[in-house]
């Protein structure tokens, strides 16, 4: 989903962001604010980034970071087939910090490497726990940042974490920002990861520059259609001529499965099904929830699968942040 993965957006070319180049970062925060209640009280970005580095370093130690999970649904079966792990940071001083704010800082300072590793371990542990408590098989999607792929040794890290957590590799899906595919050094890394048996998804496909050749050459399993394209469908016009349709058609030709992120309306869902999109994720289905809510939600859903919103009245009330 866009607001959580926004940390990667600065690294790829995004038409909408390009046009909004004068807009300060906090305006993005309000644009995606539906996932971040109260986040419009963000102070000046500059002072925050100074403060933030130190605070972020301590956040890991002080357990201020948590993961929320947003379900992903298969559009053929109506089953929940996976979740995307999304970082949350609640700091005593800064309040809730949006990933759009702190991920770039982490990326710049290199903190993203331990942060990413922590995320990966926490997510894999959670996935393993869900398996142990008898939840249906769930794919765990985790975002990977550029520096994680280039600075650290991702293959070793992933292999170690899989070994430590005992998660089956094919239950782990790494979401790679599209812009990274352009880098020669990343191709080998991706092939190495693929050899471990994990699934690879391209995040935010089509929003930046795409090289069709990469889709063929690299061991990609999954394409995530950027939510900016999802927004264009289901509006009553001819969905067949949208970019989302083009991507889905192309991905089908390349035998890649497609997931649409940021699905918010029934009309969008209907259009995606008509276009033979494979999976979806978004508010229409469920917002991101803490792990314990997800377990309840999925258990309930697996008893009566359907394409509507996961019923909120069947999960415990989550305190609004």
């Amino acid at each position, binding site marked *: 989903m866009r607001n959580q993965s926004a940390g990667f957006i600065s690294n790829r070319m995004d038409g909408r962001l390009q046009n909004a180049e004068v807009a300060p970062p906090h305006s993005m925060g309000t644009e995606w604010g539906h996932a971040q209640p109260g986040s419009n009280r963000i102070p000046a970005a500059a002072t925050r980034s100074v403060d933030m580095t130190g605070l972020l370093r301590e956040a890991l130690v002080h357990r201020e970071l948590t993961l929320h999970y947003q379900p992903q649904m298969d559009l053929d079966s109506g089953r929940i087939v996976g979740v995307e792990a999304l970082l949350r940071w609640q700091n005593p001083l800064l309040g809730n910090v949006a990933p759009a704010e702190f991920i770039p800082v982490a990326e710049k300072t290199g903190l993203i490497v331990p942060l990413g590793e922590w995320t990966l371990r926490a997510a894999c542990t959670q996935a393993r726990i869900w398996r142990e408590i008898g939840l249906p098989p769930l794919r765990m999607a985790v975002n990977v940042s550029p520096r994680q792929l280039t600075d650290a040794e991702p293959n070793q890290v992933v292999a170690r974490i899989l070994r430590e957590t005992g998660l089956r590799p094919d239950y782990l899906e790494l979401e790679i920002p599209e812009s990274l595919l352009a880098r020669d*050094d990343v191709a080998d890394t991706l092939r190495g990861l693929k050899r471990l048996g994990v699934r690879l998804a391209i995040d935010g496909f089509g929003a*930046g520059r795409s*090289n069709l050749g990469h889709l063929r050459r690299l061991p990609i399993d999954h394409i995530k259609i950027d939510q900016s394209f999802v927004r264009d469908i289901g509006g009553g016009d001819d969905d067949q001529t949208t970019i989302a349709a083009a991507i889905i*058609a192309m*991905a089908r*030709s*390349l035998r890649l499965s497609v997931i649409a992120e940021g699905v918010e309306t029934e009309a969008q869902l209907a259009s995606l099904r008509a276009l033979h999109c494979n999976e979806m994720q978004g508010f229409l289905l469920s917002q991101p929830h803490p792990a314990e809510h997800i377990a309840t939600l999925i258990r309930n859903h697996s008893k009566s699968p359907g394409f509507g919103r996961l019923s909120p009245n069947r999960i415990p009330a989550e305190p609004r942040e």
Partner: protein
Amino acid sequence: MNNGTARILVVDDDPTIRLLAREVLERNGYVVAEAENGSQALRHFAATGGDLVLLDVMMPELDGFATCQQLRQMPTGSQVPIVMMTGLEDSVSIQRAYDAGATDFIVKPIIWSILAQRVRYILRASNALREVAGRAAFQRALIETMPLPILVEDAQGHSLTCNPAFETLFGGRSLPRPTESVSGDQARLQVYEADMLSAHQDRRAVIIHRTTFTPPGSSEAGFISAILDITERKQNEERQRLAETVFQTAASAIMVTDPTGIVQSVNPAFTTITGYSGDEAIGKTPSLLKSDRHDAQFYAGFWGALAETGHWSGEMWQRRKNGQIYPAWVSVKAVRDADGQVVQYVAFFSDITERKLAEQEIFFRANYDPLTGLPNRSLLHERIDQALRRVRRHGGGLALMFLDLDRFKQVNDTLGHAWGDELLCQTAERLEACVRETDTVARYSGDEFILLLPGIAHLSNAYAIAEKVIQRISQPFDLNNTVIQIGCSIGIVLYPDHGSDVGTLLRHADLAMYQAKTSGRNTYRRYEPVMADQMLRQLSLETDLRLAIQHHELMVYYQPVLNLKSNRLAGAEALIRWRHPRRGLVSPGDFIPLAEETGLIHEIGAWVLENVCQTLGRWCRKGWRAPISVNLSSVQILHGLTVESVETLLQRHALRPEWLAFEITESVLIHDTRQAQQWLEAIRGLGIRVDIDDFGTGYSSLAYLKRFPIDRLKIDQSFVRDIAANANDRALVEAILAMAGSLRIPVVAEGVENQEQLDLLRRLGCEYAQGFYFSKPVPAEEFVQFAGRLGAFHA
């Protein structure tokens, strides 16, 4: 002298008179000598002198008058009282006696009883007169010998007399009057300052002491003035005052020390510059200002120069009270007394921080590239020279790398100079990160950089560095959140293997770089002698290309495009060919990049358009009704080919816009410049079709395919070639077709060579195709025949 001892000479030829005179005078206590005639008297007086002479007038031989006269001429006789004895009533004799110099006379016969009284009186009067005369002489001498000029004037200011000092200094000058009148008691003595001209016409400052006096025998008061010449003192005072003013107001700090270096005084500028007040500095030594920037040797040189020449000047780092170090221009001078002993040192210094900064600025401007901060060409040459000298002296080797960015021009042209500049800056940073401290990275010009690597003696070491550099430069650059990927081509030379001087080394490195560029870019080459030949060929190619248009060596070929559904001719692509007189047919791939690099693309592009429009006009008159597509370089689109010029072209050849199509590459769209978008929209607005060429070979922006007004996608022939054999390529073509189908963009497959490919494309839903299978690109006349067979022209 008293009466008792007064000696009286009695001169008379009459012995009785002599006897009686002796009797009377001796009785009254006088000592008496006698002479019986004038000659005897003179002799006696000359020998023993006397206090009074009684002289008879009437004597034989020398008479009394003559004797008197002669006495008076004797040195001792001029003042002695002479009393002449004359006959009674002999007034003539009396007159003669005075004329001869007599003091008084006594009438004969002498009344002896009063002679003594008479003598006493005359003696007393004579003594009194002598005393007065002596005092006057003393006073005169006193005044005459005094160095102080003195002038005596009468009441009207006429000079009465003056002393020699006055004569020397102010001879002939009158005195200035006092400016203020003074009265009362003070009127007796006036003291005032004035200026007056000296005898030598100098202006002198004087103090005049003036007093009034009444000269004897005058009723009017005159003036005596003593004139004190204070000109020197005034000048000294003036100098002193000036020095003090300078000291106080000088912009330079001034510090005076005694011979041992103890500070005696400092001026306000000293405080301003150093931060130390006078109180803080006085009594200390100049080490108060010492920074740790100079070694002992420096200070030794300083004191050495002071001792030897008495002065030192130069730059010196000093320390302010607040600890700040600053550069000062210091000038120190020893002050010596008359014996040559140093009595003081005076130091002047000024803070030259500003000047230093300016010098550094000038140095920086002269030696560094303002954009990247790297050494510029001039500093590079200097560094290479130095490095070469070191190697010649100490042995070893060095490597030079000539680095040119690949595709930089595209970034600059499509995104603008600001982006290009940013890219250069980031490149500079990366390059510096690739080399050691001792290496030099310089910006040579535009997007050319030089790496000077001392101590590299083997090619293998140089290669390793070149690989590192290429790897670093090939990493994507983040320019304003847009990822840009470029590369670089590197030429390598070693000293002494590939040249022995700066010029040769750089030239050969440039050649090697060029070779790297032509062999596919993003790679490195070392210099080899054959490169010079290749370079020459390249240069001659450029020269030839410039002439190609004039010499009608360029031609436009046409390749038909078929509609796969109707199997009819759907148009043609115009392709440029260069028939070189010696090289034969040169492929566009060999000369178009060169044309873009040299800017010839504008001329060539315009020629092609003109030529195509001409041909198209001719064909249209024969019934041709399909579009001809012309390739445009991104350089042309962004710089040169205006929408207006295209419009004019259509009008001139009376062409309908839908018969013309432009093929552009994705790179024009990808950077999403407003300029490109406006151009595209305007061209589409004219009704001219715009196709995307070589689709799928580079980066595509799906969003822009939707947003930009695009008419067709052309799948690059590299995908089509292996479509039957290679599942990957087939999947890709299929994906492109699926995607284009969704976006309702028709697709043209390029490079169709056989029936199998054609069938496959047809099955996948491709609408148009071109390739050797139908026809290779052919000259216009041949194309007319080909198209004629398909019924594209009037019969």
